[in-house]
Structure formats: structure tokens, C-alpha cells
């Protein structure tokens, strides 16, 4: 009996381990390929798209020869990727800053206060969360145009400050907090602002971290918004919309570009990993 359980345990472990490897392979491969020389990569990528029934692409995991040529190209010689990278970073930073000011406060109001229309508002937020971007695309463009924001960076940044999904996520967490926490502080004479800043926010750390990481993923991967709101401004596009074009041109440095693009997401992930796990565990999922 004991032995059998041991065998099953090993089997599950092996299965999950293989799956983990497959899931991580795209990132690993990107980093390995990024150390191949530009000429090498160009030649390799040219073998793609052949429909010759006899020919195969060479399967390789790592470069034949280690080289920093791709990185030299994107970091020093040609600053296209770097410029787009800076754009992306700017958008991400400004969006996250705005969200930090607006979203937890709104979640606090929705979870800890009673006022007329609260439930209707929360319901509207859930409905908005369900819809794809394109549903309100046209009216949004018209609103932004009338405010004079279209084709400026703010057209991408401002609407993201009020992302319904994160209001929902943080509100669900705050609803689950024990009421005594606030009562005790109120009896000690703390006002709402104090309670919010000194008690609610610190206690919500896991979900705030989780939301920040997930929102970072959204910002770093913005596609629809820049394509519609910044249609006439190629210079303001982030990496997420332009990277694909660069990769198609067979420049030879696409993997170093991809590696550079992945790296911040990797850091954010490592930094907030435990928050994501515990934040979701503690959230009221109903």
C-alpha cells in the first residue's frame, strides 16, 4: 500500500515536472537563442516557411557559438528596440501610478461604506469587466477626441486608470476583511483617511501586489488601445504593438529583443510571486 502511493506520487511529480518544462521552454529558448550571432540567426530564420516535404528546420536548443552580437545591436548600434522599450516602460509606470491612487480607494468605498446606488455601481463594474475592448471603442475614441486627448499618450493611459477588473479584485478582498479591524481603530479615534492609509492598505498588501503584477502584465502587453487611440502616432507606440513587425523583418536580433522585452516581466513576477499566490488565496471568491 505504502509503496503504491509512493509510485503514484512519483508519477504525478514527473508529469507535473515535464509540463513545467514545456511551459517554461518558450522563455528558455528565447534567452538561449538571444546569445546566437546575428548572421547565424538570420540564416536560421530563413529556413522557416519552406513547404518542401523533404526539408526540415534544424532543431537546436542553444546557439552553435556564444555571441553578444544581438545585444550589441539593440543596445548600442540601433536604438529602435530601446526607444520602444522606453515607451512601454513609460506607459506602464504612469498607468500603475494612476491605478494605485484610484483603484484601492474606490474598492474601499465599495466594500466598506453603505450608500445609495452602491450595489448598482458594483454590478455595472462587473458587467464592464465582461466586455472586450472593442465594444466601447468607437464612443471612447469620440470622447477622447472631444477632450483633445486622441493621439496623445493620455488616451492610452487615462482609461486604464479605472480598469473594472482590478476594482472588482480588490473589492472582493476588502469585503473579506474582519469588521473588528476597522471598529477597533475607529474607537481609538482614527478617521476614515487614517483607517484607509494605516490599516486597510497594509492589510491588503497581498492583493495589491497581485493586482499590480497582473496589471503590469496588461500594460506591458497593450495592443488594442495604442493601435486605435494612437493610430497616427508611430513614434508613441509601445513595444507590444511594434515588436511583431520587427520580428517579421528578419533582422537577426529578434531574440535579444524578445529577451529584453521578457526580462522586466520576469522581475515583476519574481518580486510579486508570493503576493499573487497568497492574494488569490485570501480573496473572497463569490
Amino acid at each position, binding site marked *: 500500500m505504502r509503496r503504491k502511493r509512493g509510485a503514484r506520487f512519483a508519477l504525478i511529480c514527473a508529469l507535473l515536472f515535464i509540463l513545467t518544462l514545456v511551459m517554461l521552454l518558450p522563455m528558455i529558448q528565447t534567452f538561449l537563442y538571444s546569445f546566437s550571432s546575428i548572421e547565424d540567426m538570420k540564416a536560421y530564420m530563413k529556413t522557416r516557411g519552406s513547404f518542401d516535404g523533404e526539408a526540415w528546420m534544424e532543431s537546436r536548443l542553444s546557439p552553435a557559438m556564444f555571441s553578444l552580437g544581438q545585444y550589441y545591436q539593440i543596445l548600442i548600434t540601433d536604438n529602435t528596440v530601446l526607444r520602444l522599450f522606453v515607451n512601454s516602460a513609460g506607459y506602464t509606470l504612469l498607468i500603475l501610478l494612476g491605478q494605485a491612487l484610484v483603484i484601492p480607494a474606490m474598492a474601499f468605498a465599495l466594500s466598506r461604506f453603505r450608500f445609495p446606488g452602491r450595489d448598482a*455601481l458594483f454590478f455595472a463594474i462587473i458587467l464592464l469587466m465582461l466586455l472586450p475592448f472593442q465594444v466601447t*471603442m468607437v464612443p471612447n475614441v469620440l470622447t477622447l477626441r472631444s477632450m483633445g486627448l486622441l493621439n496623445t499618450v493620455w488616451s492610452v493611459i487615462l482609461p486604464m486608470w479605472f480598469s473594472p477588473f482590478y476594482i472588482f479584485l480588490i473589492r472582493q478582498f476588502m469585503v473579506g476583511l474582519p469588521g473588528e479591524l476597522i471598529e477597533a481603530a475607529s474607537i481609538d479615534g482614527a478617521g476614515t483617511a487614517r483607517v484607509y492609509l494605516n490599516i486597510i492598505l497594509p492589510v491588503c498588501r497581498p492583493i495589491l501586489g497581485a493586482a499590480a503584477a497582473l496589471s503590469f502584465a496588461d500594460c506591458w502587453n497593450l495592443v488594442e488601445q495604442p493601435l486605435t487611440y494612437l493610430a497616427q502616432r508611430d513614434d508613441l507606440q509601445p513595444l507590444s504593438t511594434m515588436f511583431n513587425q520587427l520580428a517579421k523583418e528578419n533582422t537577426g536580433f529578434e531574440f535579444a529583443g524578445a529577451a529584453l522585452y521578457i526580462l522586466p516581466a520576469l522581475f515583476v513576477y519574481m518580486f510579486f510571486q508570493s503576493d499573487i499566490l497568497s492574494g488569490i488565496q485570501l480573496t473572497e471568491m463569490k
Partner: protein
Amino acid sequence: MYTKKRYALPFLLPGLAGILLFYIAPFIGGVWYSVTDGSYKNAFVGFQNYLNVWKNQMFRLGLKNTMELSLICAPLLWLLSFVLSLLLNRIRPSGGFFQSSVLLPYLMPSSAVLIIWLLWFDFGGPVNRLFALLGRDRVIWLEGAALRLPIVLMFLWKNLGFCIVIFAAALQAIPEPLYEYATLEGATFRQQAFTITLPLIVPSAFLVFILAWINAFKIFKEVYFIGGAYPDEPVYTLQNYMNNMYSKLNYQNVTTAAYSFAVIVFALFGLLFFLQKRAQRGLN
């Protein structure tokens, strides 16, 4: 719970203003576009736009594909993440490495990973090598109906981790003796999964299903990156239709298609919520 309303205002107002301005007002204002003709007089035309759009071949194709893709993606994602989190629960407390690695793809930018995807699914690439090894014919993955597979796989790859985390959190709350008892009684793994585990985690299971479906409806980035604005017919989504109508400045068609879709989405999720409430009442 605070009852004094005016204290809520400073917290609520900035967010409320933004939500109204950038989400609710456009949503309501857009209705106007879907019932006018868009000429310089902007005459009221009732449901004419809706009739036109619903008759449009490309709209129907997009709607059909979006529905089909989400019906493939969402249940598959739900089932896979349920089974994997059960397995993960079996080997607790080990498996932390797995849990944290599968979450990583959720944060990865699609376009950076896409090159690898294109390599894997190339006609001469590893996936076809695997097929040849198994004695099957090679497939042209990046064209036509076969393109759905890489897109579905990319969707699963990206969203699996998040769903597993939600499931795993719910599973950890189930007391262990319940399973020990069931095992003593001779219940199989599958019986345990569907008669003990699933009823106990209905809220989380439901949430995962909803999130999976929301994200499945939003599959567009991947299609756009692989196929451009006009991808092959089997993967032409509703978002492609709306974007293309937008770039032709046909705002009437975009909003009409958008609201048609919104109504379908709301009806669908409304039905799901209703079923979930019923299911939960049935269990209590």
C-alpha cells in the same frame, strides 16, 4: 461598515468620475450610434443597422468563430486546470515549483513569445517533427483551420497558471479526512473529484469558468499577431470585424456589432450566474 455617506465621497469620486467618463458614458452613448445612419443628418433608423450587420457575412463569420473558439478554449482550460490542481493537491506540500512556474506565462508579453510559437509550428518545425515521428503526415499549422490549434494552445499556455492558482487555493481549504474516509470506502480518484471536491468548491470553480470564458472571448491579440487584420477565415474573430469596420470609419457597424455581442455576452453570463445560484442552493 461605515454608514456616513459623505466620508465615502473622497474615496469614491475619482474612480466614479473615471468609470462614468471612460466606460459607462461611452457605453450608453454608443447606443445612439447603433440606431442612426451616420450621414450628415444623422437620421434615426431604428433597428436597420442591426438588420444590416446581422445579414453581413463577415460579421456572422466573426461571431461564429468567436463563439466556437471560446467554446473550445474555456471548457478545455477549466477542465485542464481542475485536473492539474487536483494532482497538485495530491502531492502537497511539494509542487510549489510547479505552481509558481505555470503562472509565469500569464505575465509574458504575447508578441515576444510569438516568434517561438512560429518556430515550433513551422512546416519544418518541431511539432511537425513530432508528428512525423508518430508516423503522421506533416500539417501546415500556420494557415487555414489548422491555425486554430496554435492559437488555442497559446491561450491555454497563457491562462492555465492563473486558473490553477484559484483552484489550488480552494482545494487547500478542504479538510483532508474527507478524502481519507472516501478512500477507505473505496471511492476512486475520479469519483472523489466529482462528488466530493467539485461541490465543495463551486464558487471558485464558477469563477474560473467565468474568467476562462471572458478571456476566451477576448482572444484577439494572438490572432492579430499571427494573421494580421485579415486572418484566414477559420480564425477571423468578431474583434477583427470590428477593428476593420473601425478603420473604414464605419462607426455605425462597429457599435452595432459591439452591442449585438454585448447582449449575447450579458445573456450568457446572466444564465451562468443563474445556474450557479441554483446549483449552490441545490447543494446546501
